[in-house]
């Protein structure tokens, strides 16, 4: 009797032992399904309907996708805007990050400078948008104030009301926010390069510029790949900073002549604007998703081939 008890107890314990891993992973899977996967699938389902969230849904099939790709010139405008912003900002932010890292790396007391460079990255994008909106305000902005003091400009410039300037300011914001982040990643990468390679090259008579181009840059390749890929993915989702530049003036949605309208900005306007075209917005997001996946796959392929 006693022995029997012990066996069942042990058996139960063994069984429990097998249950634990499932029990541990269950909350994650459950939450992922409930708050991520299900909403994703539901969005996908909605993308085939014409729906404003209140009145009954009307099935329209692929119409939302077709309209977006063939009729909606503003969607193409937002897409080319976003791609151009990404294409211009990434080389600059990655390059500046690399240069800053190369400069800082040999220094002894770099913690303070490292932290300062990193500050823009930890601040809410909405705060950055508000700060830039203020600095470039034609009437009360510091940029105009300082430039006219220095007599660089004779009359105030309408920075945010000019198509090209507005676009440039968005690109500058993006670069400014991310260069410190790039620097941190590169600094982390530099610590893993062994000093022996440098020593050997120095003995061969390489100068510091040669060391940088022929050792540092190639050795940091994994970091560059990571930075470019994540910057593309994040850049394609750009919205909060540019939108905040024009906060409060609803007429200026997308900036002058929609010159800084991004894909996600367009999504917000379509899906949650006065018309509430939820199906249309969902379709737009899925198109962006396909673009992001395509970019990642092409990029992975390109970098894999070279390796």
């Amino acid at each position, binding site marked *: 009797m006693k022995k029997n008890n012990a066996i069942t107890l042990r058996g139960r314990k063994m069984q429990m032992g097998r249950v*634990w891993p499932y029990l541990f992973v269950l909350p994650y899977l459950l939450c992922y399904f409930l708050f991520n996967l299900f909403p994703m699938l539901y969005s996908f389902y909605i993308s085939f309907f014409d729906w404003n969230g209140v009145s009954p849904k009307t099935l329209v099939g692929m119409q939302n996708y077709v309209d977006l790709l063939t009729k909606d010139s503003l969607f193409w405008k937002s897409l080319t805007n976003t791609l151009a912003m990404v294409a211009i900002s990434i080389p600059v932010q990655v390059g500046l990050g690399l240069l800053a890292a190369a400069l800082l790396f040999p220094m002894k007391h770099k913690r303070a400078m490292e*932290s300062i460079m990193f500050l823009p990255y930890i601040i809410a994008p909405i*705060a950055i948008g508000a700060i830039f909106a203020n600095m470039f305000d034609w009437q009360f902005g510091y940029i105009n104030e300082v430039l006219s003091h220095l007599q660089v400009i004779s009359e105030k410039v309408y920075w945010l009301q000019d198509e090209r300037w507005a676009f440039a300011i968005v690109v500058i914001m993006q670069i400014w926010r991310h260069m410190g982040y790039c620097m941190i990643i590169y600094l982390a990468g530099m610590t893993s390069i062994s000093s022996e390679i440098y020593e050997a090259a120095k003995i061969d008579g390489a100068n510091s510029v040669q060391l940088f181009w022929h050792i540092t840059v190639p050795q940091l390749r994994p970091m560059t790949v990571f930075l470019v890929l994540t910057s593309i993915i994040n850049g394609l989702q750009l919205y909060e900073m540019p939108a905040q530049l024009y906060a409060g003036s609803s007429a200026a949605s997308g900036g002058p002549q929609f010159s800084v309208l991004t894909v996600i900005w367009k999504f917000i306007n379509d899906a949650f604007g006065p018309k509430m075209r939820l199906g249309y917005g969902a379709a737009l997001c899925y198109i962006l998703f396909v673009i992001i996946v395509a970019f990642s796959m092409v990029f992975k392929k390109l970098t894999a081939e070279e390796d």
Partner: protein
Amino acid sequence: MKKLFGTCGKMIIGVAFALLLLSCLIPFVLLPLMGSYSTEELMRQLPFTFGDKFYENTKTLLEGNFLKVYLNSILVSAGSIVFSVVISVLAAYSVTKFRYKGASLITTFIIVTMMVPGQISTIGYIMEMRAMHLTNSLWPLILTWMAHPFTCFFMIQFMKSSVPTEVIESGRIDGASEPRILFSIVLPFIRPGIATTVILLFLWSWNSYTLPMLIINNNDMFTIPLYVANLISEFRFDIGGRMAALTWAVFPVIILFVIFSKSFIKGIASGSVKG
């Protein structure tokens, strides 16, 4: 001559770098600087030294519901951090330290879903929250962080690299229960990893704007970014008040960053380089 050129070049680079550093600081000086003036003063003359109206601007904010908003932000961040970290640690422990059929499949699933942009679930999530009658609470802003693939992936990496399997095995031989092993053996090893995820989750949830903007429409449930954005559209010309509010919004992030900057930077770097 060559040497002279070299020092000149170095000086130019040095000055350029100093300017870059300065540019990173300007906004953080600008916020409290402009926040310390009344809007009328700012319209008359842009200041270059601190004024004395910061307290007054803050008082005006507090007469509104700024305190409630601040508390909301703290609640959302705290809730997101606690749930997300606990859920991620449990999942990461399960897939890295147990051998069962689905373990590697779940790991792959977590890595793949890390790439999915959040927006494709936005509309579905909002509809779901409406159906659950949660849009009048802070829950939607917390639930969205519960199963966060990046946090979980980071914990998996950390669990793999810094928890030796032998100590877990010996714990099991000693007859300790699994929850006990997790809490008293595994937890001490992953404390630095947890610290990093806590900081990252704080940053993300504290700064989050788009989803709250789309879900929350009750003033009493606003978080700081929402409040500030609304301040801009409601009182277009209260520049002083807006800057003071932004100063308070940025303040805790800066403080935390100054205190934890080492693990902050280290965590972000290691998390991404490994990924």
